[in-house]
């Protein structure tokens, strides 16, 4: 059995660690690229959102590398993602691929449901080892998130252009190379040192922008045209509202790990504007915008794939939040038609607007 799972940013690092720890053979698809998207667009329904197209492309590229079993998250509720695993499986079957499918649904009642699925993939491993494997994967996710957060701080303040990107690449390599849990803390220390070694100008004035929106678009740099790097290079310290480790803790561990940013508070903040669950991360988008406004961020950018229903609901609410709390918000919609030049112009204009506003509401010229 050779297991493949779709890309979502750096998620592959943590899942690969978990599965290989449990002696499962893993095929990591090539990083999402234009080729991946092209394959997906060709075979997916046009009005499906970008995640489906990219997942499909990932699986097709992985099949060439010998993958035969798909592991994917499921879900329920208004967001279509819940049935994507099955739709993708059906499309692949029609195309003649022989894939076995394992869907990891978020546990409804008990974490045991999830463990059962993992047991199915891992075969004759002891429960103890399975749990250790999950914990190992989770620790890696935490490490990667920590490094990404550091890069968000460094990028707008770096003295030499490109230094942060280089350091992050090297630091992530340290984390990826670890194959036993015991060695992870030391590797993380080395990686953190690498990030700390980036020469910074700590007094440079920077803007702070919060990124909200749909999780896949937020986490996968290919879909959002590397927005975090682009903003960083424009002198913006970015905060992403969802990190992988937080999401895992929230949805898969059902909040087992304490002292983490949780969506509970976020949802409370959203209630005034959006009183009930609309699927996906619609409520979180609204709630996080409120939170960013309260924390004094300069602006919020919402990211969503074209046709994403929960985010469209949130998008229609954001102008009111923005007006009432005085935080500028901009929405960027991405799909395979997105052009990079248009995105850059909008980002620059938004950042300019915020910078001018910040200079004590300085009057134009």
């Amino acid at each position, binding site marked *: 059995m050779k297991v493949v799972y779709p890309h979502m940013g750096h998620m592959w690092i943590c899942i690969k660690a978990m599965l290989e720890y449990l002696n499962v053979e893993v095929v990591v698809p*090539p*990083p999402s*690229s*234009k*080729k*991946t998207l092209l394959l997906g667009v060709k075979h997916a329904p046009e009005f499906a959102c970008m995640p489906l197209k990219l997942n499909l492309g990932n699986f097709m590229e992985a099949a060439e590398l010998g993958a035969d079993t798909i592991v994917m998250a499921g879900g329920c509720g208004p967001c279509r993602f819940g049935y994507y695993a099955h739709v993708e499986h059906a499309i692949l079957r029609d195309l003649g691929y022989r894939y076995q499918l394992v869907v990891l649904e978020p546990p409804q009642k008990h974490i045991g449901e999830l463990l059962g699925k993992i047991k199915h993939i891992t075969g004759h491993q002891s429960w103890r080892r399975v749990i250790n494997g999950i914990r190992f994967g989770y620790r890696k996710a935490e490490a990667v998130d920590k490094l990404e957060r550091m890069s968000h701080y460094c990028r707008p303040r770096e003295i030499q*252009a*490109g230094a942060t*990107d280089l350091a992050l690449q090297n630091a992530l390599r340290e984390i990826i190379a670890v194959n036993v849990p015991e060695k992870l803390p030391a590797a993380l220390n080395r990686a953190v040192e690498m990030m700390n070694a980036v020469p910074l100008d700590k007094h440079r004035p920077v803007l702070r922008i919060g990124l909200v929106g749909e999780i896949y678009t937020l986490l996968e740099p290919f879909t959002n045209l*590397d927005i975090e790097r682009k903003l960083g*290079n424009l*002198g913006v310290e970015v905060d992403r509202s969802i990190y992988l480790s937080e999401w895992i803790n929230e949805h898969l561990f059902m909040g087992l790990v304490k002292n983490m940013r949780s969506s509970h508070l976020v949802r409370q903040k959203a209630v005034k504007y959006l009183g009930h669950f609309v699927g996906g991360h619609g409520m979180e988008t609204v709630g996080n915008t409120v939170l960013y406004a309260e924390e004094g961020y300069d602006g919020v950018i919402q990211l969503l794939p074209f046709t994403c229903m929960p985010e469209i609901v949130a998008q229609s609410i954001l*102008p009111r939040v923005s007006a009432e709390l005085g935080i*500028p918000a901009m929405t960027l*919609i991405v799909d395979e038609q997105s052009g990079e*030049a*248009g995105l850059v*112009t*909008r980002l*620059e*204009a*938004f950042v*300019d*607007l915020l910078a*001018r*506003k910040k200079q004590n*509401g*300085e*009057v*134009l*010229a």
Partner: protein
Amino acid sequence: MYGYLGIDVGSVSTNLVLIGEDGTVKQSFYLRTRGRPIEVVQQGLKQMQAALPDKVKVAGVGTTGSGRHLAGVITGADIIKNEITTHAIAASNVEPGVQTILEIGGQDSKIIILRNGVVADFAMNTVCAAGTGSFLDQQASRLNIKIEEFGPLALQTTVPVRIAGRCAVFAESDMIHKQQMGYNVPDILAGLCEALVRNYLNNVGKGKEILPPIVFQGGVAANAGMKTAFEKALGYTVHVPPYYNVMGALGAAMLAREATNRKSTRFKGFEVAEMDFKAGGFACDGCPNVCEVVEILESGKVIARWGDRCGRWSNALARHEKIS
């Protein structure tokens, strides 16, 4: 005497403006880009140099428009800003107290909301309402009328025809249908203007609070039919500033003046017009993205690169202090 140069390289037109130290426009040129931005910028510089008295010294250069990076690299600009900022700067100078800017160019349309002299909000065309200028051009030539006659003709209407303006393709087929039904040209043109305004307000304006004074700029502002259609739809007077078609360049010049305050300019001089620039490029084979990397060469030497997602090529050139 010192002057500040603003260059706006757009998809359809390339504009150059030279302002004096007091911010007044001394010279302005409106050229067609014709898909050759480098040549047109050089040609524009030549014309500018010829038109200026010898005693004028360029103390700062700013570029804007979709070709801003290209123009900035070849001229040695002090500031590279996008169209939204430059338009806002120019409009609030020309029309003090302006609260809404409607901007329709060749490819892009945008709305900028200012409150108390500060940009409070903006939007650009996303899924549609694009290419309004080019579309009007094309319809004028299909009807065999000059684009300059478009506006005056549209104003002669008595009953504007309702045209489906969801997107250019639908609008054109609906126009043809209305022609076949026997409507006359002025009514159809006026109807087209109204359809485009409706489309603009729905897709770009999207319920933003449009308050007067309103400035309408960009190439399309030359069209009196569009101005009237906006006034009809909004219920306010719409001002078209005297330099409506070079506002981007004007704003860039003003920003250049701000940026070079007590600093020397990076401008390479009017000799740029005589230099040999080439744009080359290659497809990078480093990963499956196969990015098309563009290189700008000055006398055979690479002075800029862009297009790569990962920064492998663009970071390889020592990047100067950020100017945009």
